[in-house]
């Protein structure tokens, strides 16, 4: 059995490797994958890529799309805007991809996707959360940018709802890093708090690679904060947790979905336990689809301690390929405008890991995830589990897109 599992994983990974090689036949469908596979956000990038590989291998095994095999063209954008731009141009002009999936970093997505927009090639953002991503080309008649990740205007109100309403904290402090991600998220948190009539008692900033969080935490502590709301990435979040341990001051951390990153959980250790964040997917086999996804992922990529580094990224990466495949099938073509038209009007529901996508996109709405879909995850025993028993019990009922779901911030254009 073990041997069989190993050969299967071997054959799957060779399949994935073969996919990324340039042995592509002329009649193959090329799909670009752009994400940071090295660096501080690599745990998200690599999990996303592995989810994409898994879905592609499954689709190809079942005969591909339109009788053609999907070939992935993977590129490491290193979370750098300029690399992302180079890759976009390469994928469009040299590789001539039918579509691209990926982007972990909002900045990279915003810098790169205008090339796809100009070339009329669809982009499926599967991880980046910046609210502006799907609205970058609102002023143009056609928009080629789609997303199946929970955007910040959903996440910030969820964080505030959890802290203020559900857990009843009156005084909260915001700690965000000085990047675009952190500062845009901080602004969203402030807006969401305002709607509840609450003002943060402290709003503090820190830089990437800061090693000491004492002043930020002391300010929050002095202001009497009962909880800390965060918008940052793994390593610095871990320094916040470690700083709290050092000061002997422990209040709950509630923050954006990055609190589920493996490099936060590992580096924070016991200090990270209890942190809560919105998640579109939690590594629990709550539906048959999720179960088979988790089993296949673990078998193929064999992550440490049977824990997917970033389950959300892996699941969304996986779903993004199925969404595209469904659109290509419906369009009967790999022509960009036709794929886009099909995405905006998907006739058959796509059963994914996160949700079942029934009409996920319309011409005006390019975000597949609405405020009713994410649940709260909590770090417990070095993994992310459901924060609420009730959510876990009801997890087998797939939450589907509800365009009337309340709780998202209205984006001003």
């Amino acid at each position, binding site marked *: 059995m073990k041997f069989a599992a190993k050969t299967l994983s071997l054959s799957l990974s060779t399949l994935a490797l073969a996919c990324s090689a340039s042995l592509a036949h002329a009649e193959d469908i090329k799909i670009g994958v752009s994400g940071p596979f090295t660096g501080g956000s690599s745990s998200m990038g690599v999990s996303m890529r592995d989810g994409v590989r898994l879905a592609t291998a499954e689709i190809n095994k079942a005969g591909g799309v339109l009788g053609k095999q999907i070939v992935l063209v993977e590129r490491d954008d290193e979370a750098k805007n300029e690399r992302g731009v180079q890759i976009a141009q390469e994928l469009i002009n040299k590789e001539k991809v039918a579509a691209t999936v990926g982007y972990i970093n909002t900045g990279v997505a915003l810098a790169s996707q205008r090339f796809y927009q100009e070339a009329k090639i669809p982009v499926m953002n599967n991880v980046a959360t910046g609210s502006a991503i799907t609205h970058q080309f609102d002023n143009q008649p056609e928009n080629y940018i789609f997303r199946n990740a929970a955007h910040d205007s959903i996440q910030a109100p969820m964080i505030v709802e959890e802290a203020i309403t559900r857990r009843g904290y009156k005084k909260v402090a915001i700690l965000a890093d000085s990047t675009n991600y952190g500062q845009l998220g901080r602004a969203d948190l402030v807006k969401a708090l305002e709607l509840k009539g609450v003002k943060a008692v402290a709003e503090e900033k820190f830089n990437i690679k800061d090693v000491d969080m004492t002043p930020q935490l002391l300010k929050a502590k002095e202001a009497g904060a009962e909880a800390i709301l965060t918008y940052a990435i793994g390593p610095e979040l*871990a320094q916040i947790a470690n700083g709290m341990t050092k*000061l002997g001051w422990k209040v709950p951390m509630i923050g954006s979905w990055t609190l589920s990153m493996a490099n936060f959980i590992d580096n924070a250790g016991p200090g990270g336990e209890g942190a809560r964040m919105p998640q579109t997917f939690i590594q629990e086999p709550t539906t048959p689809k999720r179960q088979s996804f988790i089993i296949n992922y673990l078998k193929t990529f064999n992550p440490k301690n049977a824990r997917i580094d970033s389950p959300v990224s892996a699941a969304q990466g996986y779903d993004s390929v199925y969404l595209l495949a469904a659109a290509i099938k419906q369009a009967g073509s790999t022509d960009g405008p036709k794929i886009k038209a099909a995405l905006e009007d998907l006739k058959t529901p796509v059963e994914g890991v996160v949700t079942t996508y029934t009409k996920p996109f319309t011409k005006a709405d390019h975000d597949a995830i609405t405020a009713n879909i994410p649940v709260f995850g909590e770090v417990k025993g070095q993994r992310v589990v459901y924060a609420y028993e009730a959510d876990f019990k009801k997890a087998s009922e797939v939450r589907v897109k509800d365009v009337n779901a309340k709780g998202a911030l209205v984006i001003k254009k």
Partner: protein
Amino acid sequence: MQILTQLVFSGIALGMIYAVIAFGYQLTFATSDTLNFGQGDALMLGAMVGLSLVGLGVNYWLMIPIVCVFGALQGAFVERIGVRPAIKIKSEFGWIMSTIALGIIFKNVAENLWGRDDLKFPSPLPEAPLHFLGANVLPMEILVIVGAVGMMLAVEFFNRKTIYGKAVVATFNDRDAAKLMGINTGLVITFSYALSSMSAAFAGVLIAPLTLTGATMGAVLGLKAFAVAIIGGLTSGMGIILGGIILGVAETTTGFYLSTGYKDVPGLVLLLIVLAVKPAGLFGKSAIKKV
């Protein structure tokens, strides 16, 4: 008051992290008037090698001497490849570029060997804070302070009391005269680089449990340490310690009393003031160059 104590303690701990790295700059400057701008990367290599050894099951304290030997070899390599050719042709600036270049190469090698993610370095001491005068201090921070003071004493003792140290001082004062006196100045310089990288590697394993370990950890820390070396003076061991304390406390108190967005500013303003008013550093001896 309690807040201030905590800020000062955290500032001192932070400053000592900078100081242990800054010693490396001083050691090479003391012999050859050159600096190893790859100091941050030497630090990172030390921490990464240490982490790998700990991962293999080597005890933290046993690992330190091995890392020191590694650091010494790495430093000697940098001097032979990057600095000696520049000194030989009396190039004023060649060593700047070559040490930076070697630093980048080391960083890239480390990225390929260990990946670019930040890793946790298991702490050899308990991670629960100690209470001291109403403020909290981590045992590891105390170890860093002890390490920094220990390094200062070792360097001062070496330079003042031993015959080899006198050779180092002589080489610094006048390289040609030292040579005529029978001191192998080339060897002294190589030795100082080895010592410098050794101290960086040691600093790396000392601070890694506090800072997270990764291929990019050296960049910001190396720069801050450089500021400490300039503020304190490149020729004074005492200056490094005080420079570290000044920069660290400036960062934490500004962060708290002014704004966390500006916490790096006062330290760097201080750096500019020191450069303008007392270029040799607060505690450095200003040497008059005769031309």
